[in-house]
């Protein structure tokens, strides 16, 4: 009986999507009741960041390993705007997103001149440059002390309680997610997928591939900026950690763990990683005399494990199983446009050696 219901549901993708969206909204609204509210806000901010990265990684096949540049510069911008002008925090966050987009334009124009692994190295290097600049520009960023005391202004409302701030900040993140969803499901998004699958053919069909890449890069940076600004306001400070390369790596692992090219997966990945890191930071793991504190080791192990054994990610695996039920062929997940289409690949169900 349940199997029948399941099969009928699986055959109705639109209904599924509606269920997923309503379920996701419900979880988002209930989150600060379920877990510590500041962590709930972290999850939402990182989820938007991971979704923004997925626009590039999953839908365009470009691995940006330098997204900390946009998240971090937005954190500083939001902080500066809020401290200096006392503007309502949504204005500060919006300003931060604009600055991230402006920063993304030159980086994108340069980075799209290379593809594949070089793209990752170039973005990583430029992000490191932003890090050095932030470190040196003490007047603006506060150097190693960071920017402290970022206010949460909103027309005189008292948002000092993280529980209330969550509901003030959530709409901003939801708008960001909606933008990402619109991008993916627009003709523009379909062109991005075409570029991922076969850049040469897209070019010969007349699409200016590099211009599309720059556009999606800037959109992605803007959404990352929205997330980074929100994160900084939520915490009340912005630090160098936000622009450091570990932050770029963290958002990549969220997206890969959740399943690239799935949007939902990125949010799941963000939720998992934020919770794991919070747990490690507060309690740590104690195995006999060994005390594992700090996130590096466990995040690293998750990275290695996912890349070796779980490349589809959480959402990718679910989608794969559903598709298998309906006998729809699908491909091994892939990062850039160098893989063969599903039909030419080995059967997806074959065990990986």
């Amino acid at each position: 009986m349940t199997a029948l219901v399941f099969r009928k549901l699986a055959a109705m993708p639109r209904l599924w999507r509606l269920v997923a969206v309503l379920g996701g909204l419900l979880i988002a609204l209930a989150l600060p009741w379920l877990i510590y509210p500041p962590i709930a806000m972290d999850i939402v901010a990182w989820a938007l960041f991971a979704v923004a990265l997925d626009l590039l990684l999953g839908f365009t096949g470009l691995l940006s390993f330098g997204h900390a540049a946009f998240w971090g510069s937005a954190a500083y911008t939001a902080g500066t705007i809020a401290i200096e002008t006392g503007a309502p925090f949504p204005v500060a966050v919006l300003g931060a997103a604009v600055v991230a987009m402006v920063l993304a334009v030159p980086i994108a124009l340069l980075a799209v001149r290379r593809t594949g692994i070089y793209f990752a190295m170039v973005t990583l290097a430029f992000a490191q440059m932003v890090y050095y600049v932030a470190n040196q520009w003490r007047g603006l960023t506060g150097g190693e002390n960071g920017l402290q005391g970022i206010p949460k202004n909103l027309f005189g409302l008292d948002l000092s309680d993280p529980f209330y701030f969550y509901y003030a900040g959530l709409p901003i993140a939801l708008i960001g997610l909606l933008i990402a969803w619109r991008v993916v499901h627009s003709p523009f998004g379909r062109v991005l997928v075409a570029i991922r699958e076969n850049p040469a053919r897209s070019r010969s069909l007349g699409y200016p591939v590099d211009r599309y890449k720059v556009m999606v890069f800037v959109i992605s940076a803007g959404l990352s900026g929205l997330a980074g600004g929100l994160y900084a306001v939520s915490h009340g400070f912005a630090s160098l950690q936000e622009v450091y390369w570990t932050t770029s790596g963290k958002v990549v692992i969220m997206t890969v763990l959740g399943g690239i090219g799935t949007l939902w997966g990125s949010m799941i990945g963000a939720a998992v990683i934020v919770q794991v890191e919070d747990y490690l930071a507060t309690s740590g793991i104690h195995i006999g005399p060994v005390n594992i504190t700090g996130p590096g080791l466990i995040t690293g192990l998750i990275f290695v494990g996912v890349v070796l054994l779980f490349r589809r990610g959480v959402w990718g695996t679910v989608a794969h199983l559903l598709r298998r039920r309906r006998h729809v062929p699908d491909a091994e997940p892939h990062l850039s446009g160098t893989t063969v289409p599903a039909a030419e690949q080995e059967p997806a169900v074959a065990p990986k050696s």
Partner: protein
Amino acid sequence: MTDLLQHAFNGLVNGSFYALLALGLAVIFGMLGVVNFAHGAFYMLGAFGAFILLNEAGVNFWVALLVVPLALGAVGMALERLLVRRLVALDPLYNFLLTFGLTLILQDLLRMKYGSQPQPYPQPAGLRGTVDLGLFDFPAYQVFVLVFSVLVSVGAWLLLARTRVGMIIRAATERPELTRAMGIDVGRWISPVFGFGIALAALSGVLAAPMRAVSPLMGADLIILVFAVVVIGGLGSIFGSVAAGFLIGMLQALGNVYVPGLATTSVFILMAVVLLWRPAGLFGREETAV
């Protein structure tokens, strides 16, 4: 003028670290198509290897300079066999992510054991003090580092250019399929080449220990700079990587004198210029596919 030369010399010394690391990266990339993020971690492990050997077993610098690269080279070979090989057939980005994860693990393990505070490592006896280079005095150890790394680079070049093994490796790097078709077992050389690249990283780590403090984070920031170096030099070109390494070392040192604010960013600005002017790198060839 003397001042300028002295700064240039300093730059060459720093550049020799870039050159050795870039050389290892380029060899591994050529043979496997893998960009090894963990290269910086192995540089750090090299420095820690020397540090641990000295403090736990009283082993001196010269022995460490031989033993640590050999040991870590073996670790590198095992790493290639156990992990990297599984992902080689897939998109190269997967191995980039794998080695990134390994970097986080290795870094954190050492941080938990030794803390993140930089630790000093004494300069080897015999290389303390300065030597007179005619125009100026220069710390003896720095001179040694420069000479030694130039010798290693030249040695690596001779190995690749003049020996049968080198010929096979170069052929396998350029046209793996064709080399295989000539009846040469390319697969046999993959692990040793990976190990060799890692050993070079470890070697630069040991060399760095007496000059720079030993800390778990010493490799990661450096390797990102080296990524910029190889983008500038062209990762496909072994000569290009080494030349770019020395060049950028000098550029940074001179930049530090004339435009202090730009010293750290000069590499990235140069990278931007190269991307605009010669996207494949100064010495690189255009990528064929993608």
